[in-house]
């Protein structure tokens, strides 16, 4: 018995070490640093500044708004796409094509979009071909949100697609057998049953979207200051690690909040 236990412990060790070094320690350090000002003095002022100066709150509101829009757009595109793919004959191949772009480096994709969206990029060339005057697309809110949504869509589709393929055909048949139209089956059966997939999609997409600093810089043209860009500024430019960490803590807390809201545990409902 004792032998067996130590043997088991051997398997746990790498995970516990990994957890301690790369999850617990960094989070603890972030919380620790958030209580020091730029002169390495212990203080609560970082939090006071965060919640008292309008700048950071506006920034938070902006980040949440952008992340929200990115998440909603990804759901609106991903859900129908997952629904269609889950009904296709070679659905594994199609889902592979959806995943494929995630293997390409983010920076590379960002530069590709700069090429596409710039003043004399492909999209504007096409516009001119059809007689539409060239548009300023790069460095706009819309382009930032659309490119961010494009980056996030595979991460939204996958969990939704998986929850869809888990639904047995007989549920759909039962619904139709009982007289439900296709729309009723979608809204009353398929969407509620794929809710866990939608929720994990939100968890995977929403939080990273709060801090997309690279995209906000390259596609948003640094006009969009999100919490992510602020963290980057504080750590690399102003060297105010305390303030950067404070924003980090806020991001972690908001992540916990999102997790709680998208908890998949089913509550007992009563009719």
């Amino acid at each position, binding site marked *: 018995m004792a032998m067996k236990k130590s043997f088991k412990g051997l398997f746990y060790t790498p995970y516990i070490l990994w957890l301690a070094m790369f999850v617990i320690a960094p989070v603890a350090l972030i919380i620790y640093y958030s209580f020091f000002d730029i002169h390495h003095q212990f203080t609560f002022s970082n939090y006071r500044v965060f919640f008292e100066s309008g700048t950071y709150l506006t920034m938070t509101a902006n980040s949440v708004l952008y992340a929200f829009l990115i998440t909603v757009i990804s759901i609106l595109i991903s859900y129908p796409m997952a629904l269609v793919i889950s009904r296709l004959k070679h659905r594994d191949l199609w889902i592979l094509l959806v995943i494929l772009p995630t293997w390409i480096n983010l920076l590379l994709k960002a530069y590709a979009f700069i090429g596409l969206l710039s003043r004399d990029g492909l999209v504007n060339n096409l516009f001119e071909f059809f007689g539409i005057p060239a548009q300023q697309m790069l460095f706009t809110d819309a382009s930032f949100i659309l490119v961010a949504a494009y980056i996030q869509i595979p991460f939204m589709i996958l969990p939704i697609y998986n929850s869809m393929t888990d639904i*047995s055909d*007989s*549920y759909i*048949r*039962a*619904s*139709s*057998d*009982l*007289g*439900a*139209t296709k729309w*009723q089956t979608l809204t*009353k*059966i398929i969407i*509620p*049953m794929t*809710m866990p997939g939608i929720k994990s999609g939100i968890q995977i997409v929403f939080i990273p979207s709060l801090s997309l600093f690279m995209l906000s810089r390259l596609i948003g043209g640094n006009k969009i200051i999100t919490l992510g860009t602020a963290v980057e500024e504080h750590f690399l430019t102003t060297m105010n690690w305390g303030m950067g960490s404070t924003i980090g803590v806020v991001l972690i807390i908001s992540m916990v909040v999102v997790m709680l809201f998208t908890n998949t545990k*089913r509550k*007992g*409902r*009563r*009719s």
Partner: protein
Amino acid sequence: MSKTIVELKDVYKTYDDGFTALKDISFKLNQGEFYTLLGPSGCGKTTILQSIAGFTEVTSGEVLFDGKRINDIPANKRQLNTVFQDYALFPNMNVFENVAFGLVVHDIKKDEVEQRVHDALKMVQLEKYANREISELSGGQQQRIAIARAIVNRPKVLLLDEPLSALDAKLRKDMQYELRELQQQLGITFLFVTHDQEEALAMSDEIFVMNKGEILQKGDPVDIYDEPINHFVADFIGESNIIPGKMVADFQVAFLGHQFECSDAGMRPNEPVEVVIRPEDLVITTPEKGKLQVKVDTQLFRGDYYEILAYDEQGNEWLIHSTNATKDNSIVGLTFGPNDMHIMRYNESEAKFNSRLESYED
């Protein structure tokens, strides 16, 4: 005669890969009767159910409901309901919501929904379970809820796709009685699909025995059991001893070197046939008194009878059901009367079989 509610006319179903699931299926279902499609797995019985329910399109032929062609009518517009093999109770809804689903999608008023759900749950004796979650129910309870959900729309026909296969033996027996009772109470047509011949014999008004996409024989349980059309049906329904023989003349059959008086007729003289004798129709006696002598090989105690396996001199296997045990390795005699034998021709069609039976019976 009561009214025809469902009719299949020359229905064929061929899949893209060339597999023919249904071959020339034609039958009529009358209002208020209990029908069973019986056959081994893959024989096409579920495909028939699905083509009536609207989950699969037939390749050719007609599916009629209440006299109207419904081939192109989608499943949600057909006035019949299905009890699924896996029940397919929606896990995101509780018992009440599941049973109410068929009413809610038809925009029925709340008071009426409540009343009808209550009535349906009462029918299956689960009226106190309305607020339970599906995951809190046992297999037998889920089964009943699936039935309640299917009858709440007051369908004219209820299709049941092997609904009892997931239940344990005791519960399955109880449900057989209950389903039969429910069907008579509701007075609607049940089309029940099963591979379990005991279920089929116990519940049905009429059984359709299927194999390889074809209906081999239709008839009431007693006819099918006593007068199977061919080797497959005889073997599939109940247990049987099937011995090759020769029809010497009408009411005279020869097998294993002896000639016996039988109750079948209408074959050509000296036509090769198969003789069916059910194990419970064989009576063990002394070797001298027996019409045949067999050597007992093994005996199994089955509770209400002994199942005895024996071999005759030619090495044919004989299955005998007896209330008394006998001695292993002893030679015993077997007797049987003319009515205990049923003679089957090779490759006889159902129509010919029926008309031949009519020609000499009664």
